[in-house]
């Protein structure tokens, strides 16, 4: 079962917390210039170092070339692997645990990109887990490490700690109040960066943002996490206040809008991605305020992953596109929502 169905602290605003570490093996060229033979050796080396150890039960290894295309897309949609890993499918590989909390990407932009993702606001816990995965791997292989520059990465924007810590947040009230621009500008001044996760270009579909550290060198891992934690706590407080203020100011109109979104999500026959994300965002807002008691935040985040193009295609069982996807999405969402509601009526 995926972490997405687990409870997590401050889940009303924070969907997930993720730490990612970039590592390279000593004495091999970095992925952008390495030969296929290097890549094969590295994948084999890491596979042997991780799989079959007592401490790594539940981890499985896969070459991306053996993973069906739809499943590759789903891995990206669930933030378990990157698009870059899929582009390197001829030589890349992935190690993943059964809860989908720990993944190790092999032969992405660096030889190793490992991550730990947990539900809600759990940056420190995520770092503790990943730090021990890193220790375990480091006892088996030799990393490219420089006395002054730290862990060496193929892109100098990752050198040092090689750490990218990020928090995925649902910020519908701040978005509605048009406060996001100011927030994004402020956090960029303290070495953090934010972007919309779903959608292309400047869109932030579903008012979902990822906030992460930009600087990887000159700060310790704990300092990086601490800076991000402080900024996120402020954003969480602001979002919670804005939600309450919106409800207080608009009363029944506010409730009406969220329940209408719920009605459409549960009954639509055609659902475009953009509309789906907007409705989901509204319903999630209602759930977070206890307004829509039949669903949980975990249900909402689960619906979000299965409503993405890969998730919908898998459910359909064949390659579909365009209008067909929108129809399939409406069907999947309706079915799953009805299923959730039914189990709650019984209990």
């Amino acid at each position, binding site marked *: 079962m995926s972490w997405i169905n687990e409870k997590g602290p401050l889940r009303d605003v924070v969907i997930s917390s993720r730490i990612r570490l970039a590592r390279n093996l000593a004495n091999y060229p970095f992925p952008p210039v390495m030969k296929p033979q290097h890549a094969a050796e590295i994948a084999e080396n890491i596979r042997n170092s991780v799989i079959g150890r007592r401490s790594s039960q539940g981890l499985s290894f896969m070459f991306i070339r053996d993973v069906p295309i739809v499943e590759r897309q789903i891995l990206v949609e669930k933030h378990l692997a990157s698009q870059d890993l899929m582009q390197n499918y001829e030589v890349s590989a992935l190690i993943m645990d059964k809860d989908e909390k720990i993944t190790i990407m092999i032969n992405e932009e660096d030889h190793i990109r490992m991550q730990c993702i947990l539900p809600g606001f759990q940056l420190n816990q995520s770092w503790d887990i990943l*730090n021990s995965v890193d220790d375990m791997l*480091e006892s088996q292989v030799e990393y490219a490490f420089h006395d002054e520059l730290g862990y060496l990465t*193929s892109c100098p*924007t990752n050198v*040092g*700690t090689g750490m990218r810590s990020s928090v995925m947040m649902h910020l519908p009230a701040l978005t509605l109040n048009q406060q996001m621009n100011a927030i994004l500008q402020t956090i960029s001044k303290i070495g953090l960066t934010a972007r919309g996760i779903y959608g292309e270009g400047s869109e932030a579909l579903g008012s979902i943002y990822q906030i992460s550290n930009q600087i990887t060198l000159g700060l310790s891992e704990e300092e990086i996490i601490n800076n991000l934690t402080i900024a996120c706590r402020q954003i969480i407080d602001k979002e919670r206040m804005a939600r309450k203020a919106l409800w207080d100011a608009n009363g029944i109109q506010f409730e009406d809008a969220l329940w209408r979104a719920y009605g459409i999500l549960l009954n639509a026959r055609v659902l475009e991605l953009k509309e789906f994300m907007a409705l989901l965002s509204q319903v999630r807002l209602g759930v977070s305020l206890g307004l829509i008691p039949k669903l949980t935040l975990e249900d909402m985040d689960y619906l979000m992953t299965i409503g993405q193009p890969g998730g919908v295609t898998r459910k359909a069982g064949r390659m579909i596109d365009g209008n067909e996807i929108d129809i399939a999405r409406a069907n999947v969402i309706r079915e799953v929502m009805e299923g959730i509601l039914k189990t709650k009526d019984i209990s």
Partner: protein
Amino acid sequence: MLCQECKQKPATVHMTKIINNHKTELHLCEDCARQRESFINIPTFSVNDLIASFMDMGQAKPAFEKLSPSKCAVCGMDFNQFKNIGRLGCQECYKYFGDELGPILRKIQGSTQHTGKVPKRSGSALLTKKQIQKLKAELKKAVEIEAYEKAAELRDKIRELEQSQGYSGREQQ
């Protein structure tokens, strides 16, 4: 007609836009129309652009004056290639492009000194390496002052340390 954006409220704002010689009509409710006007722009972040822009900020001058760009003797990548793809070829590139990378790192990262985690393996090898260097210096001094007993002692210690390091302490090219 319902609003095309939210599909919940009646469309009262009708817009026509010409994009690439293509006429598109938009029918929105008042709320969605207002949101569209003040649409939030989140700057997208491209690492390549970032590195390129930092390199064009005056720091590239010394590189231009060189007859040929710096080249990594291990993987063969030269600095112009790095500028184009924004990625280094191997760990030794950091050494060969040191002069050019320093200012870039200071701008992107604000620092050139790692203060975080140190891997136990390379870290302890590093410490041993430093210890061996120190002992070798002592050995040289001992030989100079003809303190042969002391020198033999130091030589054994060095040998012991070098053997304890195994393959991870081997000099990397």
